[in-house]
């Protein structure tokens, strides 16, 4: 596949005999938001550093934009933007001056530089504090300044390490909006996080990390099916006779249970809402409400690591 901007094969990292990344493989397609999720110390940051050529690769291969980050780090780093965990800036410089320094390191010409700095600061909502020293900035403002740096660089890939950790809910929402905007501009986003709830809403696909391995890869829905077993929970609120029996006949539905008066809960391997609606109407019932529970990443995660903790490798077999 030529449209993969990041390809990782059997990537391994050893520190003093301890293997922290154990031969992981994944690929990120152009234009998607890919999440590396897992607890702290699972090897996410190490993986990111290897992709940027900032840490040596012990074994395996990584290609970023078709280049080897170990041999051609300059070419990779020119086209990839990186927002480190708890990004830092020079406190004694202003926001614009911090970006100016980076822009010079990248090698932007003066006019291009000023233009990029201005528009990227405006994009992340920091235009009015461009000439304030970073010392006074809050955590959220620093993170946004980091994203401005990536925008200024016109990076094709943005690698964000724990972009939302330590932010209040509003700052998190703002930051996720900017990340979605990055995607709309055609930037591929690779982000790592241990905060699942918020990240779920932006990621197209995720990889679950556990102790240096990638446990699962896929869309949140796919993972839900894999881990939570049934997959889709469709809730039907309807008035009618014998609806439960009729709904059970829909292909793909494995169980129907009554959760309350007139409320039925279907377990299915796909989204069966339209079929359920048809069944209810055909049976002469009155449909009051129909909803599907998106599988929550939180639930997947907790369930997965519970089960893998209890019976090692049960899911690898599955």
């Amino acid at each position: 596949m030529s449209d993969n901007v990041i390809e990782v094969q059997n990537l391994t990292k050893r520190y003093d005999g301890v293997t922290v990344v154990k031969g992981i493989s994944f690929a990120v397609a152009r234009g998607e938001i890919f999440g590396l999720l897992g607890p702290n110390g699972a090897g996410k940051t190490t993986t990111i550093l290897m992709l940027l050529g900032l840490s040596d690769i012990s074994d395996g291969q990584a290609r970023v934009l078709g280049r080897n980050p170990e041999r051609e780090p300059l070419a990779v780093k020119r086209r990839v933007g990186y927002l480190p965990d708890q990004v830092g800036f020079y406190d004694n410089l202003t926001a614009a001056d911090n970006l100016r320094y980076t822009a010079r390191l990248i090698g932007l010409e003066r006019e291009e530089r000023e233009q990029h700095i201005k528009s990227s600061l405006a994009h992340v909502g920091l235009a009015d504090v461009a000439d304030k020293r970073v010392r006074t900035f809050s955590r959220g403002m620093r993170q946004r300044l980091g994203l401005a740096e990536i925008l200024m660089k016109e990076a094709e890939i943005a690698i964000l390490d724990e972009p939302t950790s330590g932010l209040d809910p509003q700052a998190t929402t703002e930051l996720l909006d900017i990340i979605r905007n990055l995607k709309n501009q055609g930037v591929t986003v690779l982000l790592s996080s241990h905060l699942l709830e918020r990240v779920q809403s932006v990621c197209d696909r995720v990889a679950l990390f556990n102790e240096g391995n990638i446990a699962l890869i896929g869309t949140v829905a796919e993972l839900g099916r894999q881990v939570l077993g049934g997959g889709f929970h469709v809730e039907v609120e309807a008035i009618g006779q014998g609806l439960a029996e009729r709904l059970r006949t829909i292909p793909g539905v494995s169980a129907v249970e009554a959760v309350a008066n007139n409320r039925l809960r279907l377990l299915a391997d796909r989204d069966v809402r339209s079929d359920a609606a048809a069944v209810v109407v055909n049976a002469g019932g009155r449909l009051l409400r129909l909803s599907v529970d998106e599988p929550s990443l939180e639930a997947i995660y907790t369930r997965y690591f519970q089960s893998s903790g209890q019976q090692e490798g049960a899911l690898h077999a599955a």
Partner: protein
Amino acid sequence: MRREGSPWQGLRVVFLKELSDHLGSWRMRVLEWLVVLTAIAAVYAAIQQIKEITAEDPFLFLRLFTRAGGPLPLVALLSFLVPLVAIGLGFDLINSEHNQRTLSRVLAQPIYRDALLLGKFLGALATIAISLVALWLLIIGLGLVLLGIPPGLEELARAFIFLLVTIVYAGVWLALALLFSILFRSAATAALITLGMWLFLTILWPLLSPALADALTPPGDVLGILSMRQAFARISPSSLFNEVVALVLDPSVRSTQQSMLAAMGLVLLERGAIPEAPIPLLQSLLVVWPQIVGLIAGSILLFVAGYILFQRQEVRA
């Protein structure tokens, strides 16, 4: 494995940023005042003395640097002050990047670590060099005004070489401070340990090394003891610097042994025995060339040690 691209990409940018940071910092304010006050104090004190002995000294101008009116002549003051300034500028060069969490962000830009490290070293060295040049010009200028006679060409040449050697001497201490700023994440620890090294090398080592040398040579062998003492003393960059400066600034000093005896307070005994005919600049330089090379090599070695450590260091905090 070969890396693509030049290791020096971005060097100029880092250098200019470091330089402008230093020049705008509080440390620089302090440094400026030190420079001005040092110049005034040294020149004033020296001139008080020179006025009494003007008569037939052909190298009067150089006495501005070497004559002590007060407790210390300028050269001794500098051999003390320069390491302090270099350590003051260098002790947090790398660990501040760690502590401000800027290192990984900067290294994610298309530059190699080489450029960052060398840029920082050169930026700090340039800052010191600017201060030293200012100090040097101040002294020459004040000397011109207060003495009322222009320096000769050879005097200027000797004074200029003294300036260059002082910058190299600053480089040694800066490289040492840089090394410790890579080794220790805490800036305070790095500063304390570098200052400890400086105290050891400039104050304790001159006291300890003769004892060590005496213990290692058979008793009675006076020349042997002398050269052994000298060899041991030369481990300290300060004594190398003092040897070089003694010869470069005083044409009547003919050998480093003589300058060491002078440093030991035996100069009065010597003065009578050895004719004071000045030796030419080139001869002075030849005598101290090994010491100059030693200083340059020392700073390169320390820098390389820091370079290797920095290349192997993990970026993450």
